[in-house]
């Protein structure tokens, strides 16, 4: 079992990779990639059954990146786990790359279960996988990462209804609740709160945590795994752009790339945070 201190080191490396690959790509989404680092590092390095050298192993747990635009964080984690060569990260968004601007199943990058990027689809897909697993009497778990702005999509709530109806206790929805979307603060554009109450009313087990606190994340995943009847939602309060001071909580960094100087500043800051 990987230690918390090691996970912190992994998070630092992933953040550096995110900044480097986005700078190299010249476009992409740093804000939401940085806000979901701890949630996914804990999942991939500690909680999920995952086979980096055999990603299609039928005993694996499934991960669906519903908020597909933050794929840099996923690509960086898969590279760190040696699903593919780390050098390939520099091909992000470039012609011929397996690292498409949004995850593409047909490019056959190891670890991508399904193409995503149009918001609001992942929870239905996850619910479908979870039903299938239950019908086969297997115990694999299914994790779906969504954004808070994404909760505005109606299809999320169709899926939320069905996950509770079919008692999908093997399904864990994670909401990277960074409070910002492209046009501004989620609460100003189209308020989605109170998320916890909404999911509870739909019949879900709900957990609210600090999405950058590895201990809280750890406990949340453990609680999900112990759940006997209901699907679980983890509403994780996060900071968009977390780890890079000039990006934190600034809407503009949803889909903007730093200059060379700011990229160096960001890397220095991230490295310092490890000391």
């Amino acid at each position, binding site marked *: 079992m990987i230690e918390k201190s090691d996970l912190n080191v992994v998070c630092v490396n992933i953040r550096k990779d995110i900044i480097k690959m986005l700078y190299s790509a010249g476009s992409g989404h740093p804000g939401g990639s940085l806000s979901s680092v701890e949630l996914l590092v804990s999942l991939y390095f500690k909680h999920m059954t995952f086979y980096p050298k055999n990603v299609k192993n*039928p005993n694996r747990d499934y991960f669906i990146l519903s908020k597909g635009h933050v794929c840099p964080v996923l690509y960086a984690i898969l590279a760190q786990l040696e699903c593919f060569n780390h050098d390939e990260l520099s091909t992000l968004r470039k012609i011929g790359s397996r690292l498409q601007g949004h995850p593409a*199943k047909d490019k056959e990058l190891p670890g991508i279960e399904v193409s995503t*990027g149009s918001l609001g*689809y992942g929870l239905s897909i996850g*619910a*479908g996988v979870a039903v*299938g697993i239950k019908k086969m009497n297997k115990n694999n778990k299914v994790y779906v990462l969504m954004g808070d702005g994404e909760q505005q999509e109606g299809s999320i709530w*169709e899926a939320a209804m*069905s996950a509770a109806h*079919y008692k999908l206790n093997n399904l864990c929805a994670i909401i990277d609740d960074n409070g910002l979307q492209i046009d501004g603060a989620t609460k100003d554009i189209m308020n989605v709160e109170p998320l916890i109450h909404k999911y509870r009313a739909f019949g879900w087990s709900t957990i609210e945590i600090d999405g950058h606190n590895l201990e809280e994340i750890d406990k949340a995943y453990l609680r999900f795994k112990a759940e006997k009847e209901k699907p679980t939602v983890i509403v994780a309060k996060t900071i968009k752009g977390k780890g890079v001071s000039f990006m934190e909580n600034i809407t503009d960094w949803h889909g903007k790339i730093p200059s060379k100087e700011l990229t160096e500043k960001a890397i220095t800051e991230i490295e310092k945070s490890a000391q």
Partner: protein
Amino acid sequence: MKIGEKKATRFGFGEALVELGESNPKIFVLGADTVSSVLISNFQKRFPERFINVGIAENNLIGMASGLAIAGFIPFVSTYGVFSTGRPWEQIRTTVCYSNLNVKIAGSHSGLMVGPDGATHQALEEITIMRCLPRMKVIVPCDFIEIKKTVIASACVDGPVYIRYGRENTPIFTNEDTFFEIGKANILRDGNDVAIMACGTMVYESLVAAEILKQKGIEARVINIHTIKPIDEKVIIDAAKECGAVVTAEEHQIHGGFGSAVSEVLVRNCPVPVEMIGVNDRFGESGDACDLICKFKLKDINIVDAVLKILKRK
């Protein structure tokens, strides 16, 4: 079973699914509250452990089917064609087709023949919106026997397939021995004066039209093009070269539909005069199925008129 007996394609769809379920434990069926009317209820009764009803939620219908495909099943979904293709179109595009997932989508109650329900429930555009999607195969069987072959064959295809079928009883005119292969058109009648190319319910009308034309001394080649994508280019090109004129017939919008698919092949390979029978840029309406087919000029006699018109253009 004698030629001329009538039975709706939806019964064939339902029967074939149960047959498939018996032989293949990976077959999974999803419904969206229209389970009995689209005839997936037989599968539900026989294999309740491989069936779910998602309620009136077509986006979730496609999403959950996608998840089941990822988990290793071969999911078939069905509801009215307007709802199974139109409402979740982007899920079909981005989740199913872009990921190349093994999801089979069926559209029941297609065409004008839904009748009294009117335009809201008359699927007249799905051939267009399904055939423009990369990786999607589009099949429009002509009768009760052919849809059974379609369903069985589509389970052997690894990737998305759209199957169109109907609610009303229509003539059965193929049999168990009639050749069927996805992607291969069937020449049902030989002739070299004109080629009538049709899909679905219009294939039978075309055969009747050919008999009327024969009495006028015109020999029409009738081709059943059940697979609109991938379309059988060779049969279409050969017919154009040998007959010199083509009439297409579909119970669907002309714009972007079956006639368009045939024309795309013709203009690139062997441009000949084409007349298109179909719904011409208008919505359907309530009425008896037969009355609507007459009102919208989708009868055998309308095909005859189109042939007489095109022969003057040859």
